[in-house]
């Protein structure tokens, strides 16, 4: 019986953690390629989700809708870079952050205008089947989603570590001006990262929204994913998987054992309490870049 409860907690924690990791990796791809902390990442997921819903509702087959939505999100990412961020290359991180705050507000408003405030059903892409393993009821679509996200994150981590373009994008994250002095195209790096982040947002939506009612408020998932970003560190890609699993399992365990004692509050507070703790002990996160001060 105890084993069954433990497995349930692990299943819930790992699959929830994968959702957080999917959102968190969108943050990190953009930060890792341009030193831009994109606070509008949740809005990117929301727009990706509703693009897919709109395409499916208009008769496009689900897989086709996912591909088209991915292209659409990549285009939105490129437009954001072209219209908003291009002029800010070389400016302070705060200036870039404030620009993404503006993007958040605009995309959020657009989401409400274009898709309306009413919740809509996101169709199941991976079917409705379930597996029962050691007494735990597992949704196949959620397991598929988690596998897709893990593979996607590992592929991105490999890309940044082993490819020429990944190396150049990392140089941009270190310093816009130094990268420019070496002839690295900083604008292109930022543009590519936003396009990739747009595609990731679509894949995250496809992987985890199946069978759920979605409204523009799903953008708030970015705030729950924030502790994962900070725990893993802003510059890591593969590290978000570990960050996601820690936060996910911690939250599931809080829900199982502490929520009954705290009227359901513990699981809500856990990620943010963890976030504060990380900021105090290790501000760069588990795998982030430590600032090197020369005295």
């Amino acid at each position, binding site marked *: 019986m105890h084993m069954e409860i433990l497995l349930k907690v692990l299943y819930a924690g790992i699959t929830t953690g994968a959702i957080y990791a999917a959102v968190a990796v969108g943050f990190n791809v953009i930060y890792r390629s341009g030193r831009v902390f994109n606070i509008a990442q949740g809005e990117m997921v929301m727009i990706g989700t509703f693009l897919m819903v709109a395409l499916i509702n208009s008769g496009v087959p689900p897989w086709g809708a996912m591909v088209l939505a991915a292209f659409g999100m990549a285009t939105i990412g490129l437009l954001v870079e072209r219209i908003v961020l291009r002029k800010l*290359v*070389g*400016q302070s991180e705060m200036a870039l952050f404030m620009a993404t705050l503006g993007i958040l507000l605009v995309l959020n408003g657009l989401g409400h205008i274009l898709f309306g405030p009413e919740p809509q059903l996101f169709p199941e892409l991976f079917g409705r089947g379930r597996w029962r393993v050691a007494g735990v009821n597992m949704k196949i679509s959620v397991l598929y989603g988690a596998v897709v996200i893990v593979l996607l994150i590992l592929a991105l981590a490999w890309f940044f570590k082993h490819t*020429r373009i990944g*190396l*150049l994008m*990392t*140089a941009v994250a*270190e*310093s*816009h*001006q*130094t*990268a*420019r*002095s*070496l*002839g*690295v*195209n900083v604008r292109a790096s930022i543009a590519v990262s936003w396009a990739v982040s747009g595609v990731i947002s679509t894949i995250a939506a496809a992987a985890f929204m199946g069978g759920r009612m979605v409204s523009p408020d799903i953008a708030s998932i970015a705030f729950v994913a924030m502790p994962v970003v900070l725990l893993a560190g802003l*510059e890591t890609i593969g590290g978000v998987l570990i960050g996601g699993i820690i936060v996910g399992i911690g939250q599931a365990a809080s829900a199982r054992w502490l929520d009954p004692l705290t009227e359901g509050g513990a699981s809500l507070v856990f990620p943010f309490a963890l976030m504060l703790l990380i900021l105090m002990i290790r501000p760069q996160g588990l795998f982030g*870049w430590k600032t*090197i001060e*020369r005295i």
Partner: protein
Amino acid sequence: MQETGSEMKSRNKDKTAAPDDALLVAKNLEVRYQGSILVLKNVSFSVAEGEIVALLGSNGAGKSTTLKAISSLIQSEEGQVTEGTITYAGHRIENDDPVRTVRRGIVQVMEGRRALEHMSVEQNLLVASAVTGMGKAETRAKIDEVFDLFPVLAEYRNRQSGYLSGGQQQMMVIGRALMTRPRLLLLDEPSLGLSPLLVSTIFNAVVRINREHGTSVLVVEQNARVALKHSDRGYVLENGRIVMEGSRDELLGNEDLQEFYLGIGASGSKKNFRDVKQYRRRRRWVG
């Protein structure tokens, strides 16, 4: 009797200055920040193919701005060449895209070293080669060239560059610049904060790069003695204007330069340019 700066400047136009078809020619350059703050005014200079040229001057004279105007890095500081021209290998390059400038063969090593701190020494070198689209074999050969020039870097090739010493970082960023196959190397204060021995190592390497690869060098320095020792010609920049130019020997023998930049007064006493009022320097140099 010693020449004044203005006399030397006019004479040099005929004898020592590089010709107008030099690799780099800046003519009547005017640079402003934010469209209004005038930093360089009517600055003209040149760097011939295979030459090492020193650009000397005190803090705030406009030396770094001059380099950034050439490399176009000034644009991200809201600066712009508002008048005059910069011609490199026959192409006008003022206010060009910095990426294109590097591809043309100009690379700037910025002041303060600017290592990509979280990357290893080798990754720093690879970033620069990746930009040029170099093949694997050539990249390997270039890296070996850099390690031959600065053997200490080979020892630390896998070390995170942020944890190198200041001197090692300076070597690395010069080596990194070489990975872009430059025809013109712009060096901004390479001696800053380094011991005399390291400064000598760095400048000897610069001379070696110049001799072995024919790379032209424009070096900005406050350490006039070291810079001139290793240069063919030099210019002195004061308050955004060129006030003196000449060959190495002419500048080293100039009384004003000795007094204000080498710290040797006419009477043998050491004197710094800061001890002399601006109007007196201008009177001597501009005439």
